């Protein structure tokens, strides 16, 4: 008997018990579908995290005050110190930021949102391009001009149409600002996207908007330091620490009153969290695949018992052990492989659907497809082998006598 004939026989006997075959397949279908869907969604989420962190700007360190220290603060002087290539050679540029919430108003249109006081270099560092208009200049910052750049969706909310925002005046708390630019849409959700943010010159924010902060008019909440490459992150961190400690006149016995964060490190941490989560969910899918395999074995054993007489007849008319073994093995393989294909399509459908709904695109990697299909075939062989072996060992005399 050649393989094609055996395959045809397998399909015939599976066809004879359609409902049972379908229910048997269901276990593997669910297993494969969940493995494929979870791995694809996981890959999508992790690439989304990576790209979003890259969107924040690569090779960047951020410096915050250590909130556990009472008088800790960072100032414009610290920013200038870190921007000095003689003191911190690995840092190509450093900028300060103040950030807070404020009421932003146009006419009667009021919105409570994030206000960021930024130096003009911020936009380049964070890869923020303008949709219309332009960013404000260093001159605007030093001259304390009340100009603003709106995030895309904030401009939409306040003016209905972002193109209408240019040249208009918005009130931030009690201070009027003239809109000079609207940023491109960044996408994503949460305050990280910046789409709902209003950007104003740092000096104006320090002196007009956040004057009630008890840290002084020249304080900043965060300093961003762009470094030459990811490789110099640790030496740059050391230089930054030394520079800030001396600027803050800290004694050797005193702890740092600031903290340096590495964005790349944060990215890899989040990425590994996502990977762990994906592996965990994939493992749950794999368990259901295993349960599906046991279902196949169970049904194959029932089938062998049910068809004892048929096996006896086949042996009587000349089937050797190998032919019977192959017949039942191909039957279980047909069940598991076709369930694998259906599960694969279902899983791809699910992940594409979820990807189209959420804020990330699911990524169906070729190795995910290969692993899921390979596993379902493997399961057919592993769990089909024992029932097939049992069938092949049946003695023809006893099998023919079986009622």
């Amino acid at each position: 008997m050649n393989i094609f004939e055996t395959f045809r026989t397998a399909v015939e006997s599976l066809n004879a018990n359609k409902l049972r075959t379908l229910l048997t397949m269901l276990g593997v279908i669910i297993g494969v579908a969940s493995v494929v869907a979870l791995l694809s969604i996981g890959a999508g989420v992790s690439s989304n995290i990576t790209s979003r962190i890259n969107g924040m700007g690569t090779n960047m360190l951020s410096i915050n005050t250590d909130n556990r220290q009472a008088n800790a603060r960072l100032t414009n002087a610290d920013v200038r110190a870190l921007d000095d290539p003689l003191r911190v050679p690995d840092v190509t540029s450093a900028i300060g930021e103040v950030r807070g919430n404020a009421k932003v108003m146009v006419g009667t249109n009021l919105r409570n949102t994030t206000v960021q006081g930024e130096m003009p270099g911020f936009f380049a560092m964070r890869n923020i391009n303008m949709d219309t208009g332009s960013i404000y200049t260093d001159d605007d910052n030093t001259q304390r001009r009340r100009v603003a750049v709106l995030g895309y969706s904030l401009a939409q909310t306040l003016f209905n149409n972002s193109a209408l925002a240019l040249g208009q005046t918005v009130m931030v708390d009690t201070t009027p600002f003239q809109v000079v630019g609207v940023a491109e849409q960044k996408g994503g959700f949460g305050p990280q996207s910046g789409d709902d943010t209003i950007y104003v010159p740092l000096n104006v924010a320090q002196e007009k908007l956040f004057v009630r902060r008890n840290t002084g008019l020249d304080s900043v909440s965060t300093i961003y330091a762009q470094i030459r490459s990811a490789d110099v992150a640790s030496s740059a961190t050391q230089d930054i620490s030394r520079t800030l400690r001396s600027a803050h006149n800290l004694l050797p016995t005193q702890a740092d009153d600031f903290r340096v964060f590495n964005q790349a490190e944060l990215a890899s941490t989040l990425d590994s969290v996502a990977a762990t989560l994906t592996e965990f969910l994939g493992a749950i899918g794999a368990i259901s695949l295993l349960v599906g395999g046991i279902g196949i074995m169970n049904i194959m054993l029932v089938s062998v018992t049910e068809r004892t007489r048929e096996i006896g007849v086949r042996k009587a008319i000349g089937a050797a052990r190998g032919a019977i073994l192959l017949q039942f093995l191909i039957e279980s393989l047909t069940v598991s492989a076709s369930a694998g294909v259906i599960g694969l399509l279902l899983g791809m459908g699910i992940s594409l659907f979820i990807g189209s709904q959420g804020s990330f695109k699911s990524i169906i990697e070729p190795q995910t497809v290969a692993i899921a299909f390979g596993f379902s075939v493997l399961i057919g062989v592993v769990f089909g082998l024992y029932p097939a072996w049992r069938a092949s060992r049946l003695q023809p005399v006893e099998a023919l006598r079986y009622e």
Partner: protein
Amino acid sequence: MIELKNIIKTYQMGDSTVHALDGIDLKIEDGEYVAIVGPSGSGKSTLMNVLGCLDVPTSGEYRLNGQLVSKLSDDQLARARSRNIGFVFQQFNLLTRSSALRNVELPLRYQGVSGRDRAARAKAALESVGLGPRVNHKPTELSGGQQQRVAIARALVTQPSILLADEPTGALDSKTGVEILALFEKLHETTGVTVIVVTHDSNVASHANRIVRIGDGKITSDTPVFHEHRSQNGTAPSAMPEKQPVMAQEAKAK
């Protein structure tokens, strides 16, 4: 040619040992038509299993066409069956999901015969049992007699030297049973195949040329049968007036 020498087959039933076959010596020449007769429990089924290479004896020698088969492994027995023996069972034992043609093709498939050759030979075998137009019917769409004809075609398609039938009329009404026995006679005479029928029914046995009676695992008698209306040398049956019209009628009905 079949040669059995002092064949013994024992089974363990709890504490006691049952001698199903107790020193059988038997020789069957090519082209014979033999009935093995005995009541149930006489050992005739065990003898059939040994003759059909479905089982091996506990001791003794069995030579089938010169090959010593009493010591063969499972797979070697399968090959011996495939090459030498065609089985016909009481309950037909057809694969119910497959057409008559595919049922008859099955033994050729296990022999590795290629597709076109296989279909042609299976069709010819079905033709020879009078089922030519029904090759694509499933067993469930056929009468008992027709199913047994399919089973006979399946047994003969490999051109075995021995046709081994176990109560071939046991599941059929008497009229159909007579038709099947007539078919055996016709096939025996036209192909020269050795026919061995195992039965408890002496009417069935009376169609054979030789009757071997079994009791308690031993051969109790071995007698030739002489048929007045039939020639012994396998020439065409000129005198079967009561049977030929039945065949003709059937052929017309289809």
